């Protein structure tokens, strides 16, 4: 399980005086489903482009499947399944023709493999439909099919779920796990923080810097210096105002029909209740809960 699949060492890319990727170092091991998370413009795609040898780093180096990202780009590209943000499909070609085209590009001669891929991704019924006529969720699936036709041991998926609704996103992650269960390693970028929960490891990018990389549960334990609470109190907006003014509160916000607060470690449930009661708010219920990856991001971003 510890076989090294991707390594980035101090990878850095500048565009003029803008540093898109700033000394990024990490490793991906065989079997990982790595989520590379960050908002738009945080350097995720630039990292991938350097790893694939599409962009020369200004500093640092990378290896993919043991090949050097600058020297051995041909070897890398023939062994990686890459899906770009804009699914590179031919709208005028059918699903099967698109797949057959990519099979040709990758030198796959075996037609059985095409049908095998269609079946694996539940696309068989759509093989005769032109890609341009498919809804976005199915286009995304077809783009994945074209990326795996040559049975790559590593998948690099750049924002595969962008613009796709939550239900289709969940279904897409299920597919990634179908492939992971067959031994494929996956490197997936996303700006949806909630998708971090689907990953075995998560890297958090912001403004070109990799803030952390670890398992979701380890990040929740290590990154957050405080504690997270569900607070049920009425009237809610007034309770929120009180919460914000209490000592020891790092952040407070809405959570549907209740409130959510992040406090420092010194605050207990009883303290919170007592302090709210002190403001004239009786009977508030306070329960400690797990932080989310968004909490982790905000803590890592230091704001």
């Amino acid at each position, binding site marked *: 399980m510890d076989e090294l699949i991707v390594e980035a060492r101090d990878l850095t890319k500048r565009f003029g005086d803008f540093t898109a990727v700033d000394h990024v170092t990490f490793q991906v091991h065989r079997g990982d489903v790595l989520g590379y998370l960050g908002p738009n413009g*945080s350097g995720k795609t630039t990292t991938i482009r350097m790893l694939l040898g599409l962009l020369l780093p200004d500093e640092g180096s990378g290896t993919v499947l043991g090949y050097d990202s600058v020297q051995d780009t041909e070897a890398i590209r023939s062994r990686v399944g890459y899906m770009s943000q804009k699914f590179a499909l031919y709208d005028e070609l059918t699903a099967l023709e698109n797949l057959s085209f990519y099979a040709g590009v990758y030198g796959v001669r075996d037609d059985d493999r095409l049908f095998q891929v269609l079946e694996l991704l539940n696309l068989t019924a759509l093989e005769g439909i032109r890609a341009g006529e498919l809804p976005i969720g199915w286009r995304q699936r077809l783009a994945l099919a074209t990326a795996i036709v040559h049975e790559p041991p590593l998948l690099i998926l750049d924002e595969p779920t962008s613009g796709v609704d939550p239900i*289709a996103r969940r279904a897409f992650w299920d597919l990634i796990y179908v492939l992971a269960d067959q031994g494929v390693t996956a490197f997936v970028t996303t700006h949806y923080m909630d998708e971090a929960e689907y990953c075995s490891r998560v890297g958090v990018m912001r403004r070109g810097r990799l803030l952390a990389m670890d398992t979701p549960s380890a990040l929740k334990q290590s990154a957050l210096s405080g504690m997270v609470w569900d607070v049920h109190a009425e009237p809610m*907006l007034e309770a929120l105002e009180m919460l914000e003014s209490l000592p020891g509160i790092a952040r407070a*916000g*809405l959570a549907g029909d209740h409130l959510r607060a992040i406090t420092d470690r010194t605050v207990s449930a009883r303290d919170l209740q007592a302090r709210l009661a002190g403001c004239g708010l009786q009977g508030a219920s306070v329960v400690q809960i797990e932080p989310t990856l968004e909490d982790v991001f905000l803590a890592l*971003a230091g704001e």
Partner: protein
Amino acid sequence: MIRVNDLRRSFGDLRAVDGLSLSIQKGEIYALVGPDGAGKTTTLRLLCGALQPDSGHIHLAGIDLQRQTEQARALIGYLPQRFSLYAELTVLENLRFFAEVRGLPAEEWHPRSSEILDFVGLGEFADRRAGLLSGGMKQKLGLAAALVHHPKILLLDEPTGGVDPVTRQNFWQLIIRLLRQDVAVLISTPYMDEASRCHRVGFLQYGRLLIEGAPSEIVSRLEGRVLELVGTPRRLLKQIASDDPQVQNAHSFGDRLHLRIAAGSAETVMRRLGSAIAAQAGSIERLRPVKPGLEDVFLDLLESAHAA
């Protein structure tokens, strides 16, 4: 503040909004979620008067949108998914443009502009050209433009897609301040965590509400029906779980599996999985009921709708 009765709108054969009724109070934030094409954006466009309904009624603060269109529209601030700014104009000039479109008198727009720019945190960027703003700042300017005429109702179409969580956090602080001023907010969002912050959530499919309610009410429907399973080897665990007659669905979540099970079957399923996994030399590190998420409920609804 917003009252919608049996709203319908078709595009050719497609029923984009199909008998939708909604009611949103002042100071309330309501999230519309649902698959692409479920009718979220069409609903918002109908509500802001950009589209005419085929039938149904929309009342905004008691005013009939179809009959007293101008008065009703004056109450609305709308932030579309793709917000257009004039890249060559400064922040202030952009805002002035939107103020004039909204019919704000000249003597009012200047003080209001500085007030609203301070509110969204763009005060010090008033003279910067809009084309040079970051994504998060553009979004704030969009919000400022939607708010320039003191709307009582705010319609937001996926306002935080792809923006920095720090910006999202600030955005939510702004929304809370608006709720305190009794503004009613209707937001469409692809983020379940964002939906779960709202007072109420409506899940839209084929132009109809499949379910609505407070997030905690909605997730309580699946209380005790989601199990977390952690152990090795993962493939074996998933196989055994998927084969169990009372497991409806097994999803991989990183190193965990989430199983959705038939109502009231938690004890039985846990016992059965425990012995089946042990019998095949697998090991269980953790097997317990966990709190369902909004997404679990929506998936369950979609699947039961398909099965019916």
